[in-house]
């Protein structure tokens, strides 16, 4: 592998600044790596021509002294859920197999204005519904990390292509979206950093909608500082998204100083699960010791309703999805399936039946059911009430602590094809990530170690609303203490 591509985004940015390397050079290397790693199936669409044009422009800006900042000229990948003007955007669904948006999402525009170079659109679970990248119409993504016997593993999901592309050293950063864990879980499975900002921090305009009250774009990178830099470029108020926050966006990278002395860290009792692998419990304990050694104060806290977060999520998210996905009707864009003599309803039903995969259909049907007359109060309102209780739990503990430390996932990466016959077993992947999603809180998965099978594991930090600054500061301290190397894949533990 090209050494340049193994550097952090932060470091390669410094090399660009010193003129030791050009954007065209790095971009060519990234394109070559993307081609070399096609077996991972991390990309749905490669955009090398667009990338090289953007790289040349970046180099020209730099030579004229008009550089756009820390990200100018750096190759990144965009999850294929973000609309990109004139570049196919599929949401990994057959129903959008040929959709070419006439506009770009705000996050993509923000990244372009920071000078980043998009090399391609990454694979994902169909409409971001999945935790293994197995539901993509374009096939599963392989994790760059392998089982000891060399067999393939899932990268997690739904942002599995972005996670694999970052872990494999194809790009320095990628966008993800997180509805119930779709950034943090794949980050944990691939040994990368995945950060879900506070709901509203990044605009959802132009992001293909799954569950609008939960969806939030965020960065996926190899280091915490890289994530801070990418988030700074992505975030900000957007008049095109009514739920976009009006809060100022601080310089997240500047908040990282390694100092966690006196930081109050909560360890939620309820995140200890029966049957959780010992490796995960040990790493969690280790995380507590690292923080204490750095002068942070760890204390047990209680989030009583944690256990009910996942079932509440699996009412709320499908309900919102069934509404959002009603727009795919075969009329205005995407797939249309119609036979001679069909009525309008025949055409709708055939289009949606052929266009959506099994998991998406399951969720639309669950959503339609929990919203239907007679069940609305018993399921949908009940779930929203439970969501209130979960948010209240967090509000209470954040009066006593600054951040929470938990495992990111209840297991390491599993084999391709596992858990596919049991939706609920698949849903349990997100047991530690969903509560913060329901409460809209910022959270990050930091790679900290490897399990007995040699596979990466992450720990999750959760902070109060719009307190990404504290989150990054704690995450960076954890990262330094752990000293994890993502490029250890292929090497023995």
């Amino acid at each position, binding site marked *: 592998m090209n050494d340049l591509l193994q550097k952090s985004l932060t470091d390669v940015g410094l090399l660009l600044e010193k003129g030791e390397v050009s954007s065209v050079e790095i971009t060519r290397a990234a394109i070559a790596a993307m081609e070399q790693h096609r077996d991972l199936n991390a990309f749905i669409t490669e955009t090398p021509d667009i990338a090289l044009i953007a790289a040349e422009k970046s180099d020209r800006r730099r030579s004229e002294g008009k550089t756009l900042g820390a990200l100018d000229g750096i190759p990144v990948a965009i999850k294929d859920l973000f609309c990109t003007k004139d570049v196919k955007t599929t949401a990994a669904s057959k129903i959008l197999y040929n959709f070419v948006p006439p506009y770009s999402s705000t996050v993509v525009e923000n990244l372009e204005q920071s000078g980043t170079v998009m090399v391609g659109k990454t694979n994902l679970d169909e409409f971001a519904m999945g935790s293994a990248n197995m539901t993509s119409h374009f096939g599963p993504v392989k994790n760059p990390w392998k089982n000891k016997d060399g067999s393939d593993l899932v990268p997690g999901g739904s942002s599995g292509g972005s996670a694999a592309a970052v872990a494999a050293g194809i790009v320095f950063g990628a966008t993800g979206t997180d509805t119930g864990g779709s950034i943090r879980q794949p980050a944990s499975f691939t040994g990368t950093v995945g950060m879900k900002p506070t709901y509203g921090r990044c605009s959802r305009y132009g992001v293909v909608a799954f569950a609008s009250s939960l969806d939030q774009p965020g960065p996926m990178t190899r280091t915490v500082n890289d994530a801070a830099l990418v988030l700074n470029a992505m975030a900000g108020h957007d008049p095109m998204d009514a739920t976009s926050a009006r809060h100022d966006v601080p310089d997240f990278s500047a908040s990282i100083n390694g100092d966690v002395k006196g930081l109050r860290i909560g360890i939620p009792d309820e995140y200890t699960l029966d049957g959780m692998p010992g490796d995960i419990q040990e790493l969690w304990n280790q995380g507590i010791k690292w923080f204490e050694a750095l002068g942070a104060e760890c204390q047990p806290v209680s989030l009583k309703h944690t256990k009910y977060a996942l*079932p509440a999520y699996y009412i709320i998210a499908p309900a919102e999805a069934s509404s959002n996905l009603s727009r795919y009707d075969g009329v205005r864009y995407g797939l249309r399936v119609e036979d001679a003599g069909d009525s309008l309803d025949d055409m709708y039903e055939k289009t949606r039946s052929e266009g959506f995969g099994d998991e998406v259909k399951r969720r639309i049907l669950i959503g339609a059911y929990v919203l239907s007359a007679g069940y609305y109060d018993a399921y949908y309102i009940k779930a929203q*009430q439970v969501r*209130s209780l979960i948010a209240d739990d967090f509000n209470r503990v954040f009066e006593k602590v600054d951040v929470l430390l938990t495992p990111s996932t209840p297991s390491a990466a599993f084999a391709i094809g596992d858990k596919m016959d049991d939706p609920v077993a698949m849903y349990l992947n997100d047991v530690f990530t969903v509560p913060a999603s329901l409460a809209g809180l910022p959270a990050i998965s930091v790679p900290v170690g490897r399990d007995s099978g040699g596979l990466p594991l992450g720990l999750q930090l959760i902070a109060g609303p719009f307190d990404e600054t504290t989150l990054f500061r704690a995450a960076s301290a954890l990262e330094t203490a752990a000293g994890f190397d993502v490029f250890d894949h292929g090497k023995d533990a």
Partner: protein
Amino acid sequence: MSLDKDTVRTIARLARIRVEEKSLQPLAGELNNIIGWIEQLGEVKTDGVLPMTGACENSNVLRKDEVTAGNQRDDILKNAPDAEGPCFTVPKVIE
């Protein structure tokens, strides 16, 4: 509460998703597994708890009623699977 074949047929129809007759029963089984697991929410006391609709602090976001991105008819029609002239088309809906 459990979903039978007829309920699945009804919600599939509401969601405009065609499900073959022979697939209704297996699908009812799959959905019941999920619904059965979700029903543990019944254990939680929620009397008087306000439903939380979202994590967003904003309310009543208003803007001026101005055209900001108009005149894009042709760009938008490019994605239509069966456009005719300046129009989207649908199967015949009136006799």
